[in-house]
């Protein structure tokens, strides 16, 4: 039996497999992008960047719990200029790299896009969905169809790159929101950002553990909700979907793809299975696909809807 083909085309971006490093995981430096590339990832997203540098919340910012991670990093990043410097000459990194861009007003996004104009990013991701950073995402009302439309339109004018809009799993009518993004010119939907927020309390300290008290839930806890979001969005839009949330095995990745995803984000899985999780997932996908007579990822996209 021939080895199945994991090649993935996402909005014209060629990937050797459908796994993507989501924003906020290891995407702080070019050296780490090379490291994940060497571990078999198909494409990688950098840590979200705002125009000005941000320190983010105080520690603890990331805490494991029984079913995943709770985090409130608070969008720490060195700002657009420093990011443009760190990620210059992206050709050195053998995989496509996606810039994740944040702002509080549509204009902020455009200013960051402008600063990054000389770089070689393959796409722009707009996370309009962080549940735990004041001034951004859900806490700034960016998760409405109107606001999403405005921000996407503004960035659409400023850049020719494919635009991915990253949505929150907290939004009940996620299909409508995806539709608004598509109508405003988005090229793909990343589904989803972290869930909640949630809280963990240390009962001896009598205090929430995260310094910001609440944080977004990722990992296994998020997986069924993320899969359902992908399934719903697939029925609402024509643009491709990057299914993200709790994927840590080849089976999970195929589940996302059958729900409608073209590519699959793998973040918290790194904590569970190590940085070589990308290679492991690809091997597991290949084995399953050849046992079950699939030749390509493409054949599996959305087939749970049939």
């Amino acid at each position, binding site marked *: 039996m021939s080895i199945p083909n994991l090649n993935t085309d996402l909005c014209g971006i060629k990937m050797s497999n459908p796994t993507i490093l989501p924003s*906020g*995981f*290891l*995407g*702080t*430096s070019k*050296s*780490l992008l*090379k*490291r994940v590339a060497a571990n078999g990832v198909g494409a990688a997203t950098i*840590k979200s960047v705002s125009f000005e*540098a*941000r*320190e*983010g919340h*105080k*520690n*603890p*910012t*990331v*805490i*494991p*719990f*029984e*079913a995943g*991670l709770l*985090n409130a*990093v608070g969008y*720490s*990043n*060195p*700002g657009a200029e*420093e990011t443009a410097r*760190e990620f210059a000459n992206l050709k050195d990194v053998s995989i496509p790299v996606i810039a994740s861009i944040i702002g509080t007003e549509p204009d902020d996004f455009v200013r960051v896009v402008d600063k990054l104009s000389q770089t070689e990013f393959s796409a722009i991701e707009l996370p309009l969905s962080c549940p735990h950073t004041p001034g951004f995402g859900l806490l700034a009302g960016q998760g409405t169809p109107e606001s999403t439309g405005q921000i996407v339109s503004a960035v659409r004018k400023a850049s020719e790159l494919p635009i991915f809009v990253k949505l929150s799993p907290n939004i009940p009518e996620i299909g409508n929101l995806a539709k608004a993004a598509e109508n405003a010119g988005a090229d793909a939907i990343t589904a989803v950002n972290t869930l909640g927020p949630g809280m*963990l309390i*240390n009962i*001896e*300290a009598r*205090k929430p*553990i995260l*310094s910001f008290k609440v944080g977004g839930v990722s990992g296994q806890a998020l997986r069924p909700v993320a899969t359902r979001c992908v399934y719903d969005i697939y029925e609402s839009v024509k643009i491709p979907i990057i299914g993200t949330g709790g994927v840590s095995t080849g089976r999970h990745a195929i589940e996302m793809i059958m729900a409608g995803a073209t590519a699959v984000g793998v*973040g*918290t899985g*790194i*904590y569970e299975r190590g*940085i070589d999780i990308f290679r492991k997932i690809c091997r597991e996908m290949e084995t399953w696909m050849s046992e079950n007579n699939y030749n390509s990822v493409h054949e599996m996209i959305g087939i749970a809807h049939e």
Partner: protein
Amino acid sequence: MNEISPLDQPVMMKIDKIVDESDGTKSFMFKHKLDYNPGQFIMVWLPGIDEKPFAVSYLGDDFFGITVLERGKYTKLLHKMGPGDQLGIRGPFGHGFSFPDNITDGKGSVCVIGGGCGMASVTVLIERLQNNNLTVLMGAATSTSLFFKNRYKDITLFTDDGSEGIKGYPTDILEDLHNKHRYDIMYTCGPEVMMSKVYEFCKKHDIQFEASLERYMKCGIGICGQCVCDGQMVCKDGPVFDLQALSNMNDFGKHSLLKSGKRVSLKEYADWKSC
């Protein structure tokens, strides 16, 4: 359902005893068992304030301790804590020192070099090496910042100002010592300029070498990328790296990331207040 290992999340532990080690340096002792390898670190949480990494500097069957130099806001608050107060501990994390066969056998010749509060990261290591031919060197800015000087019988002390021990840096006399002891391995923790010198020395003389790096940390579990040093996560791949690994790390001795993720010179990093 999976049981979370209790130390993945901070576990509140009562401070059992506090020891003044030197001017500005205190040790905090806990009556708890800790499964710890020399070179690993724990995250210490001051609820409502912040959480930072520390090496374990005392280790017994049913106790452990950390040694903390007062530097900024966080360590100042830590120094205000008294016996009976609780701190949140999670870990240990990371990858500690490794031991070549002749060191495990007790037949090897070893040099351990601690600089400043980096000395706290090598004490448990030193205790593990007692059967080997062992040289311990410690350097500090001045006499009052030296600590653990009475903890080991054979320790050679250095101060920058000559107020105690030999004036100068521990790295000044490596040539002489090596001629005498023919070291199989050198272990070090301290300012990265100092560690860089030891690294160069070991490279030149083909001696095995391991150094414990310090970077600002967030997650401590290898996912956020904050502690990166040339593609390595110091929290998970390190904090201890060997000569081979370090030779691929251009940032070693040169750069570190601020909390924002900005990569700056180690000098700028040292001047920055993180909390």
